[in-house]
């Protein structure tokens, strides 16, 4: 097996494990982190598939913006709960 295919299979396994973890784990923050890991490895796969533009977009969006949008939503839905109590 060549090195490049090995990296593809390793990244794919890590992505699938992270995706299953994101759907399976009870804790929402861990779930958000796991989705971030999925997008990180997707960016490396795009780079290996000779698509640097797409890799750069996925890196810029998935690194921070997407995580923070989900965290803000989580924060807001908790915040109202505290006010209600």
């Amino acid at each position, binding site marked *: 097996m060549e090195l490049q295919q090995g990296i593809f299979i390793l990244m794919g396994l890590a992505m699938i494990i992270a995706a299953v973890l994101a759907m399976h784990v009870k804790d929402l*923050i861990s779930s958000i982190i796991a989705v*971030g890991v999925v997008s*990180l490895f997707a*960016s490396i796969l795009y*780079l290996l598939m000779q698509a*640097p533009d797409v890799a750069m977009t996925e890196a810029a969006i998935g690194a921070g913006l997407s995580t923070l949008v989900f965290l803000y939503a989580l924060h807001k839905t908790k915040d109202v709960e505290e006010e209600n109590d």
Partner: protein
Amino acid sequence: MTNLPEILFQVSTYFVSAGIILATLRLIKGPSMADRVVALDTFTVISISLIVLIACMSSRIIFLDVGMVYAILSFIGVVAVARHLEGGL
């Protein structure tokens, strides 16, 4: 002897891949979410090396731009989760 650098680069890629496997195990195991964030931090640093190694193996300088974006933006996600944990979001 002529392709010694290529062999050494391949061995380096194997080491980096082993690092990714170990950090994935920590991501699965991590008892608290802070442990998973540590795994994410490790992933980002390791993948910058992997990106530059891929650029070296395909010998195209344009791939380094992706590494630059990752190097300067990847810490923001970790900071976001950290600020959420300490209640400052």
